[in-house]
């Protein structure tokens, strides 16, 4: 089985209401960046989790594409002509899930309040 790297991304958009956030559009945005920067045509990029409300995405790429993907994401400045910043919150070789991490944070907060 091929090794993968997981990326947990937070989408920061100047005007979130003016864009359509879908997994397909996000995927094509990242693939375009990879293509324009490293000429990597159609590499494997699988979206694991996507939340348009929370502006969060978890996707995975093959291990050998980790560095290139990271650099490409840092250089993305527009999503559908709207200035944006795809903030890389975490990368990991093991599976990531932003919903679980949010739950953990919330449970940590509630225990600290007690």
């Amino acid at each position, binding site marked *: 089985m091929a090794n993968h790297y997981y990326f947990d991304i937070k989408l920061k958009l100047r005007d979130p209401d003016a864009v359509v956030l879908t997994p397909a559009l996000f995927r094509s945005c990242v693939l375009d960046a990879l293509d324009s920067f490293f000429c990597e045509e159609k590499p494997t990029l699988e979206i694991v989790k996507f939340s348009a409300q929370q502006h969060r995405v978890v996707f995975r790429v093959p291990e050998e594409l980790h560095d290139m993907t990271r650099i490409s994401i840092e250089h993305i400045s527009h999503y559908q002509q709207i*200035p944006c910043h795809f903030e890389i919150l975490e990368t990991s070789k093991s599976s990531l899930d932003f919903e679980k991490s949010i739950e953990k944070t919330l449970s940590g907060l509630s225990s600290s309040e007690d």
Partner: protein
Amino acid sequence: MEQTKPFYDFCVPYNKDDSVMRALLSELVETGYKTVAIDQSFDHSKKEAGKRGSEMFPEPHKIEHLRREFQDKLRILQRITILYVDVNVAHAMSVSQNLRKFNLIAGQPKTDAALTHCCTAFNGDLITFDPAAGSRLLVNRKAYQVAVRRGMFFEIKYAPSIADSNYRKDMIKVAQNYCTKGKSKNIIFSSGAAHEFQLRGPYDVANLAFIFGLSEDQGKNAVDRHCRQLFLKAESRRLGKTVMFVKGNGPIVFSDSSEDEQSTEDDEMKADAFEVKDETEHAIKRLKMA
């Protein structure tokens, strides 16, 4: 010693619009920066020769309200970037009082001669370049080595490379030139971001070392250690020769002496300390007289 905390971004362009500055600074706080410098540009070459008087550099912008607003979160410094074409700038810099009010002075040469001067004789802290001018100016090996020996730092801004792919090519070319000519010594990364969406976190910026020809360590140092060194160098340039008085808080206690001996020694030391203090006061008076 002046305290600063990592991470550093020494090029946040000044914007008259406070809301833009606030958004930029808030994003810097959120992404993990602790020390930033607000940059203002000054084009020396546009000044007419006849008008080159004693003071031609502008005063720093008033940013006290921003400092107050972010006082617990960010340390905000002020920087001036001097764009110049000839060595006449050296005289203007030597007589300027306003320049002392800036924490950092950067030089942005416009010609090859100015670039060589910037590396060998410029009385500033940092050498930067104009991304819009492309990779026309490339530093030579000797000038680079002289600059490194003088403690100058070379700046690479990443925001232009995010904004435009043409700038990105030039940026990579300039960075590769630093790599081949001087093994990427004394490089710092800064943003030069016009708005908050062009800012990236310090770890992401350090990761840009991958395309700029720096090693992993050099990439980390470019947003942390080198910036600290640059700040200390700039502070020493601003303060110049400094007289320091070291004053002990209490007597020196020798562990191998008995308590009685210690107490007598303590008394003697207190007396000595008073004498030293008197002498120091006399010395200060003499200095003031001089």
